[in-house]
């Protein structure tokens, strides 16, 4: 038994943390968020080429390092802690979809470009009325011979305004209640309109994507429920990212509580503050355990992911939003300012929590799956 990240994985974490602290501090993440791209392409180039992050979990034959999912989970904890605005998460989700559902030809085409960082590929699945992007979709696919065209409107597409390739979920126009499939759409395809959205989360650029008879290629022929399984996997991975953000909040709040003097004593000596910090750690500790278990299960390919994915997502969402809320409160007036970084975590916390469905939606899925 060794229910922990390995020594090598922890060393990898340390070096990545050093890299992000040095190359992508929050000041630079803020500055990049105001550019058209929304992230710093030079830092992303280093993350791709020097650190090989986007290809970690991609097979060696496709230009990756062939690790399991634990290394990406470590990356997400660290990019979550640093509020990285890079397209790492977008590429990870897209590549996992391609690995699981893509035809050999599409895998050979897309995975090497993701692994090298040459192409940004992202999922365009979510609709306003479909938070998971797999059910109740309004986006339709029409087939004529070999040609498929898509029509619909997607929201919250990560890096959608700048991505080279999009993976769009849609249902057949002739069978709108059937299972959704994913389709590959090129960024410069006809009938594609992409607009960066004014987002709650400033450190993760998202776009609205409108498809109007846009040509597309089916990613593969998914088994029933395959997209839902992908969502469970994404939930597990998002939980890891949220654990990193939760820990960053706690670190910020505790540092301030030790330093800030009122009534001639550090405010962290008051139980009103101390106990809230303790509750943040309690929440973080539980969320970390759940996220760690979830990525272990995902890495092992166990069916248990169908319960543990939503469970971990809900736990991590509550921990992160709780920690972000209370970090602002511990910091007091300064925590409510634009200048201070607490609101960046608050924004990420609530955005991540809502992504793919909030805690109530996750627990509803969990309830279905534990046979309640």
């Amino acid at each position: 038994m060794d229910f922990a990240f390995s020594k090598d994985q922890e060393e990898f974490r340390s070096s990545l943390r050093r890299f992000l602290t040095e190359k992508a501090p929050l000041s630079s993440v803020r500055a990049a968020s105001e550019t058209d791209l929304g992230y710093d392409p030079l830092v992303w180039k280093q993350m791709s080429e020097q650190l090989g992050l986007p290809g970690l979990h991609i097979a060696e034959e496709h230009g990756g390092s062939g690790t399991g999912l634990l290394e990406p989970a470590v990356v997400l904890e660290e990019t979550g802690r640093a509020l990285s605005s890079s397209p790492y998460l977008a590429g990870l989700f897209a590549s996992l979809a391609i690995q699981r559902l893509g035809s050999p030809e599409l895998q050979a085409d897309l995975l090497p470009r993701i692994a090298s960082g040459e192409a940004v590929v992202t999922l365009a699945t979510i609709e306003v009325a479909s938070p998971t992007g797999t059910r109740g979709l309004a986006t339709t696919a029409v087939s004529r011979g070999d040609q498929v065209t898509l029509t619909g409107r997607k929201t919250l597409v990560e890096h959608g305004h700048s991505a080279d390739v999009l993976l769009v979920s849609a249902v057949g126009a002739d069978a709108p209640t059937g299972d959704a499939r994913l389709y590959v759409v090129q960024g410069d395809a006809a009938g594609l309109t992409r607009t960066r959205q004014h987002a709650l989360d400033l450190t993760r650029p998202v776009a609205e994507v409108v498809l109007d008879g846009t040509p597309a290629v089916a990613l593969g022929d998914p088994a029933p429920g395959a997209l839902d399984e992908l969502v469970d996997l994404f939930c597990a991975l998002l939980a890891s990212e949220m654990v990193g953000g939760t820990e960053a909040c706690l670190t910020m709040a505790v540092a301030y509580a030790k330093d800030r003097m009122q009534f001639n004593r550090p405010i962290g000596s008051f139980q009103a503050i101390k106990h809230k910090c303790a509750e943040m750690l309690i929440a973080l500790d539980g969320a970390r355990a759940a996220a760690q278990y979830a990525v272990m299960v995902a890495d092992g390919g166990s069916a248990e992911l169908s319960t543990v994915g939503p469970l971990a997502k809900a736990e991590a969402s509550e921990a992160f939003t709780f920690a972000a809320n209370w970090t602002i409160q511990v910091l007091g007036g300064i925590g409510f300012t634009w200048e201070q970084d607490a609101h960046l975590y608050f924004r990420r916390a609530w955005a991540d929590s809502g992504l793919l469905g909030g805690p109530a939606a996750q627990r509803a899925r969990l309830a279905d799956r534990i046979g309640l």
Partner: protein
Amino acid sequence: MDITYPPEAEAFRERVRAFLGENLPAGWTGLGALAEEEREQFRESWRRTLAEHQMLAVSWPKEYGGAGLSLVEQVVLAEEFARAGAPQGSENDGFGIGMLGNTLIHLGTEEQKKHYLPRILSGEQRWCQGYSEPDAGSDLAGIRTSAVLDGDEWVINGQKTWTSSGHLADHIFVLARTDPSAAKHKGITFLLVPMDQPGVEVRPIVNMAGYALFNEVFFTDARTASHEVVGGVNDGWRTAMALLGFERGVGATTDAIRFRGDLDRLVALARERGLTEDPRIRERLAWCHSRVEVMRYRGLISLSRLLNGGRPGPEASISKVIWSEFAQAYTELAIEILGPEALAPTGQATGGLLQMPEAGTENSPLSWVETFMSARAGTIYAGSSQIQRNIIGEQLLGLPKEPRLDAGPFRDLAGSRG
């Protein structure tokens, strides 16, 4: 990342399963299925069986009557006993074996180990814990019970309270003030005291659920021999804290198993009333499932640390907060599920419980109301939720302590003499 148990632990699991299969009565579901008057009799005979098979203190060294195994085997045993609904010992064993015995093994003299450990295991001695006092609860180091040497005996005067299972005990370990001129943590001695003497009086306290499970213990010129000290004279705070470490023990690794069974009962309760269809109840039940799973994952992390040479530390405070607050939350949900049935509860009573009903108890409204009432105690005893948050804040997060108003000699503090 790997959560499989080591082969020797799995081999031990097979032994435990075989033992339970051979020794539990056929069709056993738990003590709760027995009539109350039969329970004590079963407990006693079962305890003798456990002692004979070295199943009471598996992690104690063999020379003191243990099985010489590790904490992991202790966890495996707890898991299998919980699954089978089998008691792990008598009510006093938590104090005698879990707390005092482990403390003696680490801090006792050779004579103390040889004298006490076999008697604790055989059941000849039943122990209880003399820590809290009416004016020393969360501030445990503020105890006033005094011990003064008179020749080769300590003479003890004062009062302990909240002494669980004290009415069943014949020995008590006592924190006593032996140097009032020292600072409050520095003048305390950990004493072993026989209760079968005129100077010791036990009076039961009835808890809010109506059961007499804990007691007041009064000392009036009670006596114990001068050598009955664990750790040094005036160094009892260190002993008390070491014992606290054993009290925490490996609980984190088994919390999930204890709660899983009761959560299954809760789901059954909701299902019988058609409420698993209600989205609000479904979400809360899914939340309960999540909390118990988080206990399981955290338990695996603790167990993994133990296996890799770690010891339970202040992170046990997190476990304590999680389980005790969960115990209140899920029993409150039970009250909501029961609706009017909770307000005039019927069916089998628990017979008194510390955390949850004995396995095999009928899934009755009354059993839930009693569990619900009893859950209020969990966030108070063994370090209240507020004290745990202080420990988490100060020891795990490094936040500064409150300014102290109790430095200096104990006897100069307000209220030190009552």
